[in-house]
């Protein structure tokens, strides 16, 4: 037994080799340890990374958001065509929690192929305190909800705006002036408000059958007040419980005829300032995947006996109700909307049923298919049923 052990024992040479190998391994290990970061090293790096995060530490933040859409429309009396390539970047420049500059541009492709550029809004928002923000500049009209909150294509559940809520409709689009807005709790319920003073709209007259009449209202945030008459208004919203919001809007002031549809504006002189009054109400109810909302707006313009375009007053009125349902566990959504738009002109009047199906690739990238059953003056575009497809992306 002892002899066997003696025979198995390594020679001095073998031991020396092993020792040398161990020395090499130990040197490698030392090198590895030398290259390894200690806990203190990691903490130091973490601190440096935190400081190097310019976005988080900067007092001024710059951010671009916005939305874009492309689409296809096929109406009864027209050939189908790809259209509505819209790109609306929104720029945000914020200094801490004191002030934010917001600007939305709208690039769109005209039927002629030209690119139109519009300033949708540009405001400087001063966060006065927790309950007030003073907004100055050109802002979306706070009358109702559609224009100020729902019109972006990635938010609007249908490819089109409800009749009367677009440009030259019953609802004002934007305003240039000052606005105070915010929210506050009151008697256990949440409320929000917006009050404003602005340049107000301008009126368009039309010369027909030997006399002038009111054609439309342009309430699109004019950069000057040509008649010197301001408009005052606002909206008050109540949220009695989570999921329900009810709002009331109104504005009042004066408006004057400043242009003639397809006519010579130079003929206008000494136009009288007319009464301009808007009233509206809206609601929004959410129950899980179901959403029901509606809105009513009436714009009344008074008569004028003064000036070239002296004529009686007129009323524009529109309302819509929209229901939508997102199927549980799927990316599909169904939408239905009914709108009734009444104006002083039969060619503008329209009732519409819009039925739609949406596919939400993500919550901000939506494919919309819709069919509109339109009922207007026969032979007029407002009477054409339409199929619409739109891809909208909010970013």
């Amino acid at each position, binding site marked *: 037994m002892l002899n066997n052990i003696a025979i198995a024992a390594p020679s001095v040479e073998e031991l020396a080799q092993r020792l040398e190998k161990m020395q090499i391994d130990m040197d490698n290990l030392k090198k590895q340890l030398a290259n390894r970061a200690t806990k203190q090293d990691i903490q130091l790096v973490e601190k440096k990374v935190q400081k190097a995060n310019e976005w988080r530490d900067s007092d001024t933040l710059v951010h671009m*958001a916005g939305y874009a859409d492309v689409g296809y429309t096929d109406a009864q009396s027209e050939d189908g065509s790809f259209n509505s390539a819209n790109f609306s970047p929104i720029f945000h420049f914020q200094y801490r929690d004191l002030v934010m500059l917001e600007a939305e541009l709208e690039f769109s492709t005209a039927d002629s192929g030209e690119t139109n550029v519009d300033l949708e809004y540009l405001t400087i928002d001063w*966060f006065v305190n927790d309950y007030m923000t003073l907004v100055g500049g050109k802002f979306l009209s706070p009358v109702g909800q559609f224009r100020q*909150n729902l019109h972006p294509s990635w938010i609007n559940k249908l490819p089109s705006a409800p009749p009367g809520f677009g440009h030259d409709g019953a609802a004002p689009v934007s305003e240039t002036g000052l606005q105070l807005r915010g929210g506050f709790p009151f008697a256990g319920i949440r409320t929000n408000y917006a009050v404003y003073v602005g340049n107000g709209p301008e009126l368009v007259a039309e010369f027909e059958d030997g006399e002038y009449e009111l054609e439309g209202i342009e309430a699109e945030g004019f950069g000057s007040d040509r008649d*010197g008459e301001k408009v005052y208004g606002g909206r008050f919203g109540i949220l009695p419980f989570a999921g329900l919001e009810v709002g009331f809007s109104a504005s009042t002031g004066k408006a004057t005829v400043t242009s003639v549809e397809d006519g010579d504006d130079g003929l206008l002189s000494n136009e009288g300032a007319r009464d301009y009054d808007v009233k509206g109400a809206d609601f929004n109810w*959410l129950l899980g995947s179901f959403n029901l909302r509606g809105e009513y707006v009436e714009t009344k313009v008074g008569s004028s006996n003064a000036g070239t375009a002296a004529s009686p007053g007129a009323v524009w009125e529109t309302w819509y109700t929209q229901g939508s349902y997102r199927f*549980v566990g799927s990316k599909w959504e169904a939408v239905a909307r009914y709108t009734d738009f009444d104006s002083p002109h039969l060619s503008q009047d329209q009732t519409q049923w819009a039925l739609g199906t949406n596919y939400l690739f993500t*919550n901000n990238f939506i494919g919309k298919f819709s069919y509109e059953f339109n009922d207007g003056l026969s032979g007029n575009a407002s009477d054409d049923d339409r199929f619409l497809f739109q891809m909208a992306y909010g970013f």
Partner: protein
Amino acid sequence: MKILNRKYLLTVGLLGFSIMVLGLGSSVSLASDFPEAGDFVRGSKAWSENCMRCHSMRSPSDLRDDQWVTTVFHMRVRAGLTGQETRDILTFLQASNAPIDNSAGDVEPVSKEKIAQLSGGKIYQRNCMACHGANGKGVLPGMRDFTDKTGRLTKTDAQLLNNIINGFQSPGSSMPMPPRGGNAQLSNDELAAILSYIRQEFSK
């Protein structure tokens, strides 16, 4: 001559006076610790109750922390939020925008004794209810119904705990469940207690 018009002077004077009063009353509006911390729990509730008033819910992981700052302040103006609601929602979103970690390994099982020591119901109410609802049926569109007998709770505890801890994207849903429900402060033991509560309450 127009500048001497009485009505004009009245309007300008009223605006100037209003701005001056607002300015005097806003000496504390510039917070020295911007972005000022809000409350995570209140923020998750305010987020689930407000954003869907107008648009489909954006996932917290859609934007970086700094992008959420400008976005939420923009929404403060647009949605009529108070300053406190703004800070709460921002705190919730910045805490919840960690991406889903698919590389993380399986989670160690938590003992029943540890779970029994914690109140899963209370933790659920503070951290999960804003999205999943008090009845487990889901508050946000597309949210899975815990009470569905063939639904989410047919998975094993290990699978569910893994999804809760690392985050999960359900097929067909537009918004992922953020890691730890968006609250990185919750421990594995607390998350296991929540899961135990969900099973007890909603899979009866």
